[in-house]
């Protein structure tokens, strides 16, 4: 089953072209890694699939529908941890509970299932002991795990992760890997951006190299051996690059 279908998508921010003719199909039960230099449009690609950025041209469908038309709770999105104010008055459990909010109508109370989903997500990311801690008192790795736990508690059908392994300790990366691979085994389609190429084969079934367009696409070992990523890295290094990642 095709979970995500990206057709000829172009995204422009004023004069900067972030994505220029992206084509991508992703099946259920597949973990897709997205690599590329800073400003290559990796984050923009995730945001476009999440329906947060509207393509200037082309179409995105998720399970056959426009992302904005999906039932609330369908897309679980894990942003980079710098994107929120960690002084916000909330505990780890409060934030993970937010994962359930899109599924609850006005005045609805948390059901037994809602509570269980939150407890399971906390346990899966090894956060049960930290559940009542304020989010400002967490390490970067713990904050990252809190965000992933919130997405898991949502029980999404598609998971999008924006560089979840950047700046986290090895134990956190192991925990994240186990959770994500478990979801993929259960049939979840996953898209994840990363800079970490060493463990690409552990994480992903498929890897794409993006720099405005898809430059290489295939199983991780073949793509990395193909040298597409190395060549754009060198290109970026010598010529610099417009940043279009953070919008």
């Amino acid at each position, binding site marked *: 089953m095709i979970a995500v279908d990206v057709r000829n998508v172009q995204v422009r921010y004023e004069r900067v072209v972030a994505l220029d003719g992206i084509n991508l199909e992703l099946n259920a039960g597949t973990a897709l890694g997205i690599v590329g230099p800073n400003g290559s449009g990796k984050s923009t690609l995730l*945001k476009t699939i*999440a*329906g*947060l950025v509207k393509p200037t041209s082309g179409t995105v469908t998720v399970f056959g529908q426009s992302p904005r038309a*999906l*039932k*609330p*709770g*369908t*897309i*679980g*999105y*894990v*942003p980079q941890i710098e*994107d*929120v*104010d960690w002084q*916000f*008055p*909330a*505990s780890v459990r*409060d*934030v993970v509970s*937010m*994962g359930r*909010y*899109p599924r*609850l109508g*006005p*005045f609805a109370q948390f059901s037994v299932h809602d509570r269980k989903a939150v407890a399971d997500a906390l346990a899966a990311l090894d956060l049960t002991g930290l559940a009542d801690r*304020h989010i*400002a008192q967490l390490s970067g790795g713990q904050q990252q795990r809190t*965000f992933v736990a*919130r*997405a898991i508690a*949502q029980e*999404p059908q598609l998971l*999008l992760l924006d560089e979840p392994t950047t700046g986290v300790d090895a134990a956190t990366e192991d925990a994240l890997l186990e959770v994500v691979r478990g979801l993929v085994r259960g049939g979840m389609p996953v898209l994840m951006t990363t800079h970490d190429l060493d463990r690409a084969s552990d994480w992903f079934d498929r890897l794409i190299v993006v720099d405005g367009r898809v430059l290489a696409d295939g199983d991780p070992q073949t793509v990395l051996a193909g040298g597409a990523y190395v060549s754009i890295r060198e290109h970026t290094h010598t010529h610099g690059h417009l940043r279009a990642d953070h919008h």
Partner: protein
Amino acid sequence: MDALLAPFAEQYMQRAFVAALVVGLLCSTMGTYVVLRKLSFIGDGLAHASFAGIVIAYLRGLNYAFGAAVVTVVTALGIGYVHRRAKISLDTTIGVLFTAAFALGIFLMTHYSRSSVDLQSYLFGSILGVSQSDLLMIVGLALFVGIVVAAFYRPLLYTSFDPIVAEAAGIRAPFIENVLLVLLSLTIIVSLQLVGIILVAALLVTPAASAAQLTKRFVPMMVISGVFGVVSSVGGLYLSYTIGSASGATMVLLATLLFFVSMGVSAVRRRRLSL
């Protein structure tokens, strides 16, 4: 004892106390969202914008609250729209649109109206002039705001913390923002008669800012803010009656006092923790 209860003897004072209680509670709970979303400037701006509506309603012989509500809600939705569309920063949008609406009010008032005495009371509030029908409107609108906040409690909270992820998960963040802006407009209109345009932002922001010093959880913050709001408004009214000061200003100064006390408590706590 009789002396202590003296302010409650007159009927107009009883109405004033009920109004103060309702407005104190409403402003301070809505203020929690205002502070967490860093919208303090909006409260002030919306209050100023309402002035144009009051003047227009006054000149046309309409109900002032109706005029204020229309202009304030339209301006609130306008800034939301302009901000999202034009990619102009929120504080710039507010700075432009709300001062424009206030200027329009002053322009209309000075150009068309001979006596501007009645309008002055909206600048500084006149809680002692709350009539039976004013009170009904205040309570009615406050109930409405309370019910809508209860209905949208979760999406309001989620979009305050992380609007991007909330939106990706299917919560319509722009709609929720518009709901909040409309509720804020209504809150401000309800409060105008008590504290006036110039000071209403303080009732919105100060109790919530004080509560934020004392707790790191959302629900306790809303509760503490509510308590501080009511203590400031009801206490301020009582004090102003006793010492003969302006009620709106007394409420705001009391709220400010609570803010500094909260800051002090928070500083002492932090020092204890670090020792």
